């Protein structure tokens, strides 16, 4: 797929100028080089230079935080942290510059999709929790990045453009691989499950939920997020793709939907961005929203109890430099205990790592860039 095609996957992504695209590609390539070519080699540095000293000092194998602290003093790793932080910050910044230049045109495209399919329901009075504010992922104003224009879509446009170009199609050029892969797994795991109403919590621009509507076309599909700028974009994007999703600006800790009104409630990479106080409230809300036999799952990076201590320590960069400070709390949480406290029966709980549907057919460049192995972790339970 050439650069024009990559920047034309749907009407809300537009080709940038030669210089702007070159600039975006520079930072994207630097990120991929650091993730795929440099970081795997740092494990050797750890094993050779750092681990023996830690074992000697501690008299035991080191834990995640001890490894992260020691690696922060290791020069090769310091360079990685520094370069990766710059590639993240500048990569998002240049995509934002492109979006700001294109904004009137993108807004016109969004406005043209105002009749759906699907719907959009915003709540300007919704209280926004502190944990989701800030420059998450080193983007200025994070999920609430906005211009002064009414009905702004900057947050969604930057997120979608950045991921679509930055991931080089590794999750599909419409970033639908996660949704399609998770939904395919659902069909296999629960073959007689026919959800009538589906809800995604924390949908950002709808990359995942679209795959669920396509897999369960008979279902009425809803999605919520806290950011109006993300939701306006998500609605326009899925409408442009001809997929009927009903978007709402609501808080996953306590939605305004009726109890027992959904058959499937799920999230994708939401939970690690919520606080320790919010997490149990979200699980309890899932329990309230589901009818009997309904399914809840949360898909995120694998929990720490599935990783060796060095692999756990790699998330130190994300939690600190990349400004995702709650991820350590979530990944070290005992999910099954938390689900039980929310009212779910332990006998119904499941964990799985569905494979990427796309990866097996991907070209070598896509496979090389998939440094996380092409599996999508999830954990969930059935409402009894």
């Amino acid at each position, binding site marked *: 797929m050439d650069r024009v095609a990559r920047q034309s996957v749907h009407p809300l992504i537009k080709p940038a100028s030669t210089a702007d695209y070159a600039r975006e590609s520079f930072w994207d390539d*630097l990120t991929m080089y650091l993730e795929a070519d440099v970081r795997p080699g740092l494990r050797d540095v750890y094993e050779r230079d750092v681990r023996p000293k830690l074992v000697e000092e501690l008299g035991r194998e080191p834990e995640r935080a001890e490894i992260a602290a020691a690696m922060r003093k290791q020069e090769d790793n310091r360079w990685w942290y520094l*370069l990766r932080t*710059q590639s993240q910050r500048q990569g998002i910044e240049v995509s934002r510059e492109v979006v700001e230049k294109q904004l009137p045109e993108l807004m016109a495209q969004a406005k043209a999709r105002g009749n759906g399919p699907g719907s959009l329901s915003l709540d300007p009075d919704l209280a926004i929790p502190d944990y989701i*504010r800030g420059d998450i992922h080193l983007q200025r104003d994070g999920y609430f990045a906005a211009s002064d224009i009414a009905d702004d879509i900057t947050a969604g446009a930057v997120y979608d453009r950045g991921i679509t170009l930055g991931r080089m199609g590794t999750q599909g050029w419409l970033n639908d691989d996660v949704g399609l892969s998770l939904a395919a797994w659902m069909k296999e795991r629960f073959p007689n499950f026919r959800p009538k109403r589906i809800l995604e919590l924390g949908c950002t621009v709808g990359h995942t939920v679209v795959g669920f509507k396509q897999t369960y076309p008979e279902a009425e599909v809803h999605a919520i997020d806290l950011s109006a700028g993300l939701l306006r974009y998500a609605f326009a994007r899925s409408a442009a793709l001809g997929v009927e999703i009903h978007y709402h600006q609501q808080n996953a800790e306590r939605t305004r939907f009726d109890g027992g009104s959904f058959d499937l409630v799920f999230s994708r990479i939401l939970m690690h961005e919520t*606080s320790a106080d919010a997490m149990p409230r979200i699980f309890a809300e899932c329990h309230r929203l589901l009818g009997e036999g309904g399914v809840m799952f949360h898909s995120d990076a694998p929990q720490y109890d599935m990783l060796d201590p060095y692999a756990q320590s790699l998330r130190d960069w994300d939690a600190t*430099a990349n400004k995702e*400070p*709650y991820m350590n709390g979530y990944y070290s949480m005992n999910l099954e205990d938390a689900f039980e406290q929310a009212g779910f029966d332990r006998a119904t709980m499941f964990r799985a790592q569905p494979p990427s549907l796309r990866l097996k057919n991907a070209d070598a460049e896509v496979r090389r860039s998939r440094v996380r192995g092409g599996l999508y972790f999830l954990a969930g339970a059935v409402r009894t």
Partner: protein
Amino acid sequence: MADTPETKDQHFFDDPAIDRLTAAFLQLASEVWVLNERFAALQTLADEKGVITREDLARFQFTGEADAEIAKDRGAFLRRVVGPLTARD
């Protein structure tokens, strides 16, 4: 865990100047790449439109005053880029 994220900007070397210098270096590298790509676009367009061939560009030599001018510019560029690193109090 506090309910307010700790989101201070990080620096990774004991002397923050290294972090800042690296940021500047990467910006420079990015802009060099942008120039490279724009030049490739110019070369391709000129070639396609038959204005200047790739061969013309490859064989071109600055001569006379133009050669002296470009040498002067090169010296100034070098002093601008390397000067701050070689300056002594």
